[in-house]
């Protein structure tokens, strides 16, 4: 697997491993939170704009709509599977299991971006509508998780004091990544290739370099998350963080096969399904299911699944996409 190796040896992944290694060796270095949060806004603007410009070039085909719909359905469904597996294999209580399941239905934008680069490196094209799909897949999983957590329970014992109507909705529908992704996508669509020409040096030229810096920080975060959360993990929980993305990937590969998606788009959809959220969903869970323990779901999604996906997972998902395409093509 030549592609896999060249993905692993690309500077982006090497910087990720550098950060992860430094964190595991207990280096005190860190990228200031304000700086890396700023970079993450840049990255989301860049992929939003790129997706929008690409979508503006082509009319909205049925395939595009099917991909968007498939993304939403997967985000709704995957948490149920994750929840069942967690109930079956781990000792997590109902709330913890539901909260964790939400993370796996939702997505990780950084994993998506890393996959985009890997797919491009592997020589495949990707459609701009996958960015829209990513944005759409962020939230449905949260709804499923809330249903799972409350099902079978008597009516909840009242709201937490100080809760406000709509605060969860705002958090979930208007969080930074949804606003910036969808906004930049729309702006790219409206302004088109010509309108965005003057901002290309910033958003396209620098993209991969910024990604290196950002993944260095993500490596530090993932490594520290793993080191700090380690004690709360047991083998079945840890294993879940490794096999769950593969299960989601297989299901999604099948869907891609049925839809007859081209390899690039399929690889990205599979990656989205296999990726787990570690920013938007944890925040939503603290509001909606505060009883669930953040140390469990954060360690899993950030400390286990994210590094797995970025290093080993993505090459596998590209291969799966190739198989799915060849079976149906």
């Amino acid at each position: 697997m030549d592609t896999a190796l060249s993905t692993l040896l690309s500077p982006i992944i090497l910087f990720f491993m550098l950060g992860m290694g430094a964190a595991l060796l207990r280096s005190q270095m860190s990228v200031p939170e304000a700086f890396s949060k700023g970079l993450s806004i840049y990255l989301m603007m860049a992929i939003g704009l790129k997706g929008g410009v690409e979508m503006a070039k082509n009319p909205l085909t049925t395939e595009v709509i099917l991909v968007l719909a498939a993304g939403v359905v997967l985000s709704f469904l995957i948490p149920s599977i994750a929840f069942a597996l967690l109930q079956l294999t781990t000792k997590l209580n109902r709330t913890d299991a539901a909260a964790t399941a939400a993370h796996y239905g939702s997505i990780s934008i950084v994993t998506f971006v890393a996959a985009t680069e890997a797919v491009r490196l592997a020589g495949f094209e990707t459609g701009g509508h996958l960015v829209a799909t990513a944005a759409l897949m962020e939230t449905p999983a949260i709804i499923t998780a809330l249903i799972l957590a409350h099902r079978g329970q008597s009516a909840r014992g009242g709201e937490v004091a100080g809760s406000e109507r709509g605060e969860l909705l705002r958090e979930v529908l208007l969080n930074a990544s949804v606003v910036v992704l969808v906004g930049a996508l729309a702006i790219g669509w409206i302004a088109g290739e010509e309108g965005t020409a003057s901002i290309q040096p910033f958003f396209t030229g620098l993209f991969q370099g910024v990604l290196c810096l950002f993944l260095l920080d993500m490596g530090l975060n993932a490594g520290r998350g793993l080191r700090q959360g380690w004690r709360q993990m047991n083998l079945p929980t840890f294993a879940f963080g490794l096999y769950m993305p593969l299960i989601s990937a297989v299901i999604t590969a099948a869907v891609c096969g049925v839809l007859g998606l081209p390899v690039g788009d399929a690889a990205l959809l599979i990656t989205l399904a296999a990726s787990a959220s570690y920013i938007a969903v944890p925040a939503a869970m603290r509001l909606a299911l505060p009883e669930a323990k953040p140390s469990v779901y954060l360690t899993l999604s950030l400390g286990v699944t994210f590094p797995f996906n970025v290093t080993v997972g993505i090459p596998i998902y590209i291969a799966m996409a190739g198989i799915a395409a060849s079976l149906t093509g």
Partner: protein
Amino acid sequence: MELHQKRRIELIIERMAYKRACRVLEQVGVTGYTVLPSMAGFGGKNRWSRDTDISSASDMVVIISITDEEKADEALEQIANILGSHIGVVSVSDVQVLRPELF
């Protein structure tokens, strides 16, 4: 210069829930509060630190409010409800202020 007895509430609470606590304080009728960021901490068996915590899910903030005894008691009761499900610690102490009519 005369000093007047008031109460100082200090609430250490997870960042995601801090607006809930603020609303409670406003409903109770305190005249003001100030929220400070924190950068690291320890509780139970877990350490956290801000530069580590990409999701801000374990970030804590500190809310300080100077108010009178009565409102402090009422605020505590409501905050106890929040702390039933959210992570945090609350304490109150005596302080003296210059202009009691402000609190």
